[in-house]
């Protein structure tokens, strides 16, 4: 059996890592990722942990938008629901804001996901009735409604501009957001986010190659045809929204563990737009693309922050022009435009091109 690309059975063709090269590369990647925690300094680890938590949310958005074709500009809203559910469950019962005092991540993480999923399922009837851009604008409306509700509900959120402490990550009695005798805070958080990202990515891959995933793809490609083939549109669009919101809820809960603090102002339209940008720049309809996109944008921000020391004309003073915040926004906008015009499959598409080039090298076919 030394012809690894020849599949004799459907199951081996559909396997997650269907070639030996992929198996080896994936194991090596995971090993390197796990060991990075011992090599890098804490601020880089914090950045990577943020990237991993973001990637979970982007995988969720990709399930709805990339796989099922249901464009959602409301991802910030679902992130907010997850973040506040998690914060409320693990918060200090005697604090200024609502808190139940249950700090175990095993409780608040599933709860954050489930509450967001329930809200996603509530919104789904709109998705069932609407298509394309109508849906995009309605989900955009969710961000505004959510922004208002979270801004006004001060017992839960602390109010706009003030905020509240975020969820507390505690696993089997160990506070992961405090340095222990062996490891620093950021090493622990990085490992936590990395493990969760692997779990969530695996689950999403499995959904994508199941009956549900095939139904999603059929709906994305032509919903009328999918309906005629016997796919229950209402049911699968609801599943897509609930699943996507579940991922967003979990990501929301995790993301703010790292900084430890959140305000309602975090969840604005710009967040939704960046989320869509991550999906499109990474590669719509692929899990690895979603992860790539999330890390790409997360790692972009320290680059722009380093700009003032490299280019003297650029300042980090928000009141002067040109400053790094302006450059960052312009870079986001320009990246979206450039990728969509020149490489619609995103970073994943670039990787596929590179791979097939070297596979066939030195031939061009």
């Amino acid at each position, binding site marked *: 059996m030394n012809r690894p690309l020849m599949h004799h059975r459907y199951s081996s063709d559909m396997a997650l890592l269907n070639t030996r090269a992929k198996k080896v590369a994936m194991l090596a990647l995971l090993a390197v990722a796990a060991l990075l925690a011992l090599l890098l300094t804490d601020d880089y680890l914090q950045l990577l942990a943020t990237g991993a938590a973001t990637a979970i949310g982007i995988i969720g958005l990709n399930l709805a938008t990339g796989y099922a074709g249901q*464009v959602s500009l409301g991802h910030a809203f679902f992130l907010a629901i997850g973040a506040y559910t998690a914060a409320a469950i693990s918060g200090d019962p005697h604090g200024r804001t609502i808190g139940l005092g249950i700090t175990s991540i095993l409780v608040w993480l599933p709860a954050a996901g489930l509450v967001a999923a329930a809200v996603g399922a509530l919104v789904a009837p709109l998705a069932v009735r609407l298509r394309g851009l109508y849906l995009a604008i309605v989900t955009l409306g969710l961000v505004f409604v959510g922004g208002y509700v979270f801004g006004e509900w001060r017992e839960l959120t602390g109010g706009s501009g003030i905020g509240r402490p975020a969820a507390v990550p505690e696993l089997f009695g160990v506070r992961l957001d405090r340095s222990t005798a062996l490891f620093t805070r950021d090493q622990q958080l990085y490992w936590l986010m990395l493990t969760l990202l692997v779990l969530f990515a695996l689950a999403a891959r499995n959904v994508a190659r199941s009956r549900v995933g095939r139904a999603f793809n059929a709906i994305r490609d032509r919903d009328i045809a999918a309906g005629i083939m016997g796919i229950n549109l209402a049911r699968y669009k609801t599943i897509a929204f609930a699943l996507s919101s579940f991922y967003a809820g979990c990501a929301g809960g995790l993301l703010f563990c790292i900084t430890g603090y959140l305000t309602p102002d975090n969840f604005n339209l710009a967040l939704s737009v960046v989320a869509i940008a991550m999906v499109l720049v990474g590669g719509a309809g692929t899990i690895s693309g979603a992860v790539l996109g999330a890390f790409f944008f997360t790692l972009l921000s320290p680059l722009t922050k380093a700009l003032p020391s490299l280019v003297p004309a650029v300042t980090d003073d928000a009141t002067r022009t040109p400053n790094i915040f302006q450059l960052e*926004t312009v870079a986001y906008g320009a990246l979206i435009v450039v990728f969509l015009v020149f490489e619609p499959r995103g970073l994943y598409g670039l990787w596929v091109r590179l791979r097939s080039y070297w596979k066939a090298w030195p031939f061009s076919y």
Partner: protein
Amino acid sequence: MTEAIQILSRGLGAGGIYALLSLGFVIIYRASRVISFAQPALMLAGAVIVSRLAPEVGFYGALAAGMALTATLALAVERVAVRPMVGRPVFTVAIITLGVDAVIRVFANSVIGVGLLQLGDPWGLSETTVFGVEVQQRSLVIVAATALAGTILYVFFRFSRMGLAMRAVAVDQETALAHGISVGAVFAFSWAIAGALAALGGAMAAVGGSVDANLWLTALVALPVIILGGLDSLPGAVVAGLVVGVVQETLATYQHTFPNWLGGNVATLTPFAVMMIVLLVRPYGLFGTREVERV
């Protein structure tokens, strides 16, 4: 009664701005089936240009120049970022306009800086008496501007050659192409008109206030308005804009009587709430064309 007329005038004033912006969205949508998320940035850019030119050439000259310049900017956006995407999924194009929006907005905001730009308009917040009721002049001006723009657009679409071509493209792009209509010219013209309307709307929104970075949020409120009126209906955009404006002003006037748990500024949610309710009943808005599903 006095209060009712004042609410109505304020509401129509706010609604007129929504209507002007919505007309721009709808004209672009009819030509290319794309919602241009760049419209809010064009509105901000238009308002900034008007406020910078007003001290030099006076308000009316600045308004005309601002509309022309914003139309040119919109033309450039269409040519560079949107035209190459013909035939690609409409959502892709919509996301591209989101990117363009971010870029233009940064430049407009950097002109605004930390200060507030004054428009230099002749009305400000002064009031005038209509039927014995004090109403703000700016409301009347906005309603007049909306009516004027609406009439010009009606005459243009109804009687001019280009207007006919644009209506034909809105019905069926390929058939229009087969009849010798230059679809590219229609795209360009639609974006130019939308740009000019955005500048007018932006200037009107800043009358009596100032041009600041939050102005573009007003344009985002125009999004539920176009959904409400129906994405491809010009009269729908005007009617829905005015309705949303009046409902919002009414709620804003009486919201201090609402229960406390609703919060202090619930009227800002009106456009979105009205949109969601209407969409559950009528998925294509009030006046939108029902899409025929062909297999």
